[in-house]
């Protein structure tokens, strides 16, 4: 075995590994607890003291997606025996399903607003980043700093005038309003990140393309974009994660039609008391996409969260 002064000894590696894995397990516990709670019955979820071993049930998921009401004898008679497995679960609690809950719609809002704002943000951000990277833009440094500084404002601080502005424009509680807002918030991050990615693409490629008779637009479209694809994809995921998780604007500027899932999940209640399994089920469903992205993003994580200040 070759010896290197910078290669840690086996003992050090073991020691480091055990500590890190220990921390990882501790940090996973709350997360696993959320996921596990989603599969508990309401009684188990508030068991006193808490239970680790329990009989799993899909009741939380059923409750998440349905509205139920406490059944009177007459209603049970009218409805007849349950025909589906989820109705059966509801009946066991003495309730009947009256319809779909709002969760599906809120989740769709998150999808529409998240993906809509990300797409718009990528279009605008890539164009601006390209211009900042390749052209002499007057006051370039000032503009770049200005773009960054917009991120320093507490959302609540700008929410007041945005609320007033949206009210006048009829954008309050609309998908369009939220898409524009999240796009604007995310633009700073995407311009900074994308500029970094485009800076790394050699200018010579475009020059060659221009010589071959491409126009500037064509060179941008056919040469730069494919080269920047990975960068654009990872930037897009960061924008999506922000829009996906954002709470402050969503809670202040949306109420019904355009409300996303984060303000909604904490407020799920059951037929009596807080329905923790349903809350946990909602949280779990909501975090699956983000976990998938995290795994996909591993390599670009750092660049994204540091505004491109740290490159790896």
């Amino acid at each position, binding site marked *: 075995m070759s010896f290197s002064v910078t290669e840690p000894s086996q003992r050090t590696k073991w020691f480091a590994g055990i500590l890190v894995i220990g921390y990882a397990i501790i940090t996973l516990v709350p997360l696993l607890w959320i996921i596990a709670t989603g599969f508990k019955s309401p009684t188990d979820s508030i068991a006193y003291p808490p239970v680790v071993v329990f009989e799993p049930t899909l009741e939380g998921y059923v409750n998440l997606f349905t509205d139920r009401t406490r059944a009177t004898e007459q209603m049970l008679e009218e409805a007849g025996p349950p025909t589906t497995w989820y109705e059966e679960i509801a009946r066991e609690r003495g309730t009947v399903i009256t319809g779909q809950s709002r969760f599906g719609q809120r989740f769709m809002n998150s999808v529409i607003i998240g993906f809509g704002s990300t797409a718009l943000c990528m279009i605008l951000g890539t164009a601006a980043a390209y211009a900042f990277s390749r052209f002499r833009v007057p006051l370039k440094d000032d503009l770049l700093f200005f773009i960054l500084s917009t991120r320093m404002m507490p959302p609540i601080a700008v929410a007041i005038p945005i609320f007033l502005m949206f009210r006048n424009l009829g954008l309050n509680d609309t998908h369009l309003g939220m898409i524009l807002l999240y796009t604007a918030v995310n633009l700073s991050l995407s311009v900074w990140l994308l500029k970094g990615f485009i800076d790394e693409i050699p200018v010579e490629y475009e020059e060659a393309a221009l010589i071959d008779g491409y126009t500037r637009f064509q060179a941008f479209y056919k040469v730069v974009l494919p080269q920047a694809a990975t960068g654009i994809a990872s930037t897009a995921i960061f924008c999506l994660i922000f829009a996906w998780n954002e*709470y402050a604007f969503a809670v202040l500027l949306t109420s019904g039609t355009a409300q996303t899932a984060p303000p909604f999940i904490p407020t799920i209640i059951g037929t009596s008391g807080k329905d923790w399994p349903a809350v946990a089920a909602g949280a779990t469903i909501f975090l699956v996409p983000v976990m998938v992205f995290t795994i996909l993003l591993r390599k670009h994580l750092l660049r994204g969260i540091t505004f491109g200040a740290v490159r790896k």
Partner: protein
Amino acid sequence: MTHSPIDRAALRTPPGMARRIRGLSDRTIAWIFVAPTIFLLLAVNIFPLIWTIRLSFTNFRVNRPNNAVEWVGLENYRRILSDPDVWNTMQATAHFLIWTIVLQVLIGFTLAYLINKKFRGNDLWTTIIVFPMMLSPAVVGNFWTFLYQPQIGLFNYVVSFFTGIDPASFSMIGDVHLAPWAIVIADTWMWTPFVMLICLAGLRSIPDSIYEAAECDRASKWRQFWTITLPMALPFLMLAVLFRGIENFKMFDLVVQLTGGGPGNLTTLTSIDLKREAFEKWRTGYSSAYAVILFVSVFGLASIYVKALNKVKER
């Protein structure tokens, strides 16, 4: 950037296309590319900011559309700065800010240092550690209220398992001494990975050759840490502190879901206080002044900090 390739290309292309290229000079393209972004940022960030500043000198209230709007000068600012409650929220924010940063830097740096020992499977465990920071802070805050419940939550039982303290004997959210720490713990759980990642980038940017040279000079590991590792990772650490500082100064979602600002006002951070003034009491003018004060402070502090950061980088 040279223009010559374009001109050369233009000479060789048919007249129609040449006109198109000449018609859209780089300058025009630059503006077409940048303008929408600048426009959107002006509309959604700067215009509202200017509006906020304007409103901050009035007694306007959104929920009283029929009341006359009066110009009150600096009255709102005077009221805010002389209000002891505002200073209390500033103190709560400072406590939260300082301790989250201290803990996250200590734990985050240690983790990064350990992961950098490149034990087998470190990539996998790094990814797992990163999960919490990808969640929605509001959902995290909401769930931690559940974890912190003395009777039915997990946190107290875990503490009790390790220390033998009766789980029902303390309440993280309800106790005046513990509540400020409850929000620090939840935030640290969520955001330590962030600091860890940046530190890891810093540690990995240090070339092996420097350590090899130090080894030749027979510098102890301890000395190497203080003279090489730490100074070279410092700009990265400071960057992590900057980002966490800005984020936690703005902190709203996690804490509002976790404690609602209580008990009393102990965990009412400035953003939560501002939200109450603006969207519950609807004192629009007053809260606009509050927002301006917050923005100026975060902007001012960040600017000073960035200057310091640049100095460290230059060294």
